[in-house]
């Protein structure tokens, strides 16, 4: 049943990508683009350039396209944020599937991960990909958890549950996207092509973990805190009107580094690694500890495991 559905899904996606997508706003867009190019190209910071407007889906880009696009993004970032950045495009490693494990007995709700995530991923400072829920001991009702807690932590009778993108193996957000702007990569990370995203927010509604965030306004990042190590599919500065989410810091993890949230965690609650390697920490944890996932009944098959130890 599931395989049937996923096969159908795959076919649908492939078909979608092969089709020359007729843009409804073809003429309008062309006119606007030309108009802007002619009259006020420099003044309108968020105006689409000709190249940007005709940019293809990430999966259709040739290496030359990518080089040109990355150079353009680097130039734009320098103009808009006065910071020199490097756009990278690390592809998944062979024989690697990422898994995250989080020890809820150790997490003390200090929100160091939240802060590190914002800085690493160049997000607007009004939100974070990670939400730390304060939960009552003896229950696991996510709706009773709250992110608004103050004062010294951990509090008596509470435990802390950080929630971020679960990088589902059966991701509902990918199914919901009408333009295939989000997809699951070989190493299990669900990514978004921010330049292909139309901002319909269907994926945000489909996600049962509230992992996705929509940029209602242009992200505001303190200029001295911009992280120059940027991935095209992960932490490059997003425009207004697109959806974004945690990508397991793929610009770091695909070169063997650890996610920023893990490195920031002072309690050692966060564990990350390759599940296909039986000697990895995460494989040992999943084998020996009583791990569980959030909302298992939805069959989203998360890659984010929780345990108490």
């Amino acid at each position, binding site marked *: 049943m599931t395989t049937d559905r996923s096969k159908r899904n795959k076919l649908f996606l492939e078909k979608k990508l092969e089709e020359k997508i007729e843009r409804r706003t073809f003429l309008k867009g062309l006119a606007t683009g030309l108009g802007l190019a002619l009259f006020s190209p420099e003044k309108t910071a968020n105006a689409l350039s000709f190249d940007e407007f005709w940019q293809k889906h990430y999966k259709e880009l040739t290496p030359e396209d990518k080089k040109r696009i990355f150079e353009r993004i680097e130039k734009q970032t320098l103009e808009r944020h006065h910071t020199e950045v490097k756009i990278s495009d690390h592809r998944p490693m062979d024989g690697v599937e990422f898994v995250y494990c989080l*020890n809820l007995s*150790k997490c*003390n*709700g*200090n*929100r*160091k991960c*939240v*802060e590190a995530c*914002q800085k690493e991923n160049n997000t607007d*400072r*009004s*939100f*974070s990909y990670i939400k730390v829920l304060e939960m009552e001991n003896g229950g696991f009702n996510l709706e009773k958890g709250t*992110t*608004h*807690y*103050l*004062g*010294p*932590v*951990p*509090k008596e009778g509470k435990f802390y549950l950080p929630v971020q993108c679960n990088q589902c193996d059966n991701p509902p957000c990918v199914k919901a996207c009408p333009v295939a702007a989000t997809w699951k990569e070989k190493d299990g990370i669900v990514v978004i092509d921010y330049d292909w995203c139309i901002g319909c927010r269907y994926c945000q509604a489909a996600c049962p973990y509230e992992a996705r965030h929509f940029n209602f306004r242009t992200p505001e990042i303190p200029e001295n805190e911009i992280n120059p190590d940027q991935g095209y599919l992960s932490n490059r500065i997003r425009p207004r009107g697109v959806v974004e989410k945690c990508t397991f810091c793929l610009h770091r*993890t695909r070169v*063997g*580094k*650890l996610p920023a949230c893990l*490195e920031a*965690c*002072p*309690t*050692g609650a966060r*564990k*990350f*690694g*390759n599940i296909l390697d039986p000697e*990895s*920490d995460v494989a*040992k*944890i999943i084998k*020996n*500890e009583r791990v569980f996932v959030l909302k298992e009944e939805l069959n989203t098959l998360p890659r984010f495991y929780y345990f108490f*130890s």
Partner: protein
Amino acid sequence: MILIMQMIKICTMLMIVLIIISCLFFNTFLHAQEDTPATVSSQEELPNEIIKRTPKIEMYRCDECHDSEESFNSKIRPMAKDKDHESITTFHPEKKDDPNFWCNNCHASKNYNKLILQSEEKISFNESYRLCGQCHGPTLKDWKNNIHGKVVGGWLNNKKQHSCTSCHNAHDPKMKQVDPIPEPTRSKKS
């Protein structure tokens, strides 16, 4: 008839003696097991490199002040307030009423630069896990499997593991409450 009775008597005597002897031996065996402390042998291979502790200890090396030949007052006594070690205020607070629990349990009495195991082996401050693991066995097991503790440097290679005293205060190991980073909120645009 008398001969047979005597034979039986001798047999029972022998059996009782045997039982007593075996009991004694068994007892000594049991005691021997209890006396052997659970230590980690230094030969054991650890998968990751351990992050060194000594560069982070403020007053290391100890023999800059303490003469290593200086004889240590080995009389068990409560910890005195020491102006040179002001940060050391408590000492495994859960054990403060235990009179046998004091400095010399962990610190070597002759060589101040070393810690000492129950087996009298002197170890470096970098190997605190061997010392703590003597009592905290399950935690040591978890630590070796990176379930307890923190590994940094990368998930693929270049793994470096923090030892116990990187995070825990050796003299007051229980983790304290901390002030969290404020929750990110939507600031009102002016």
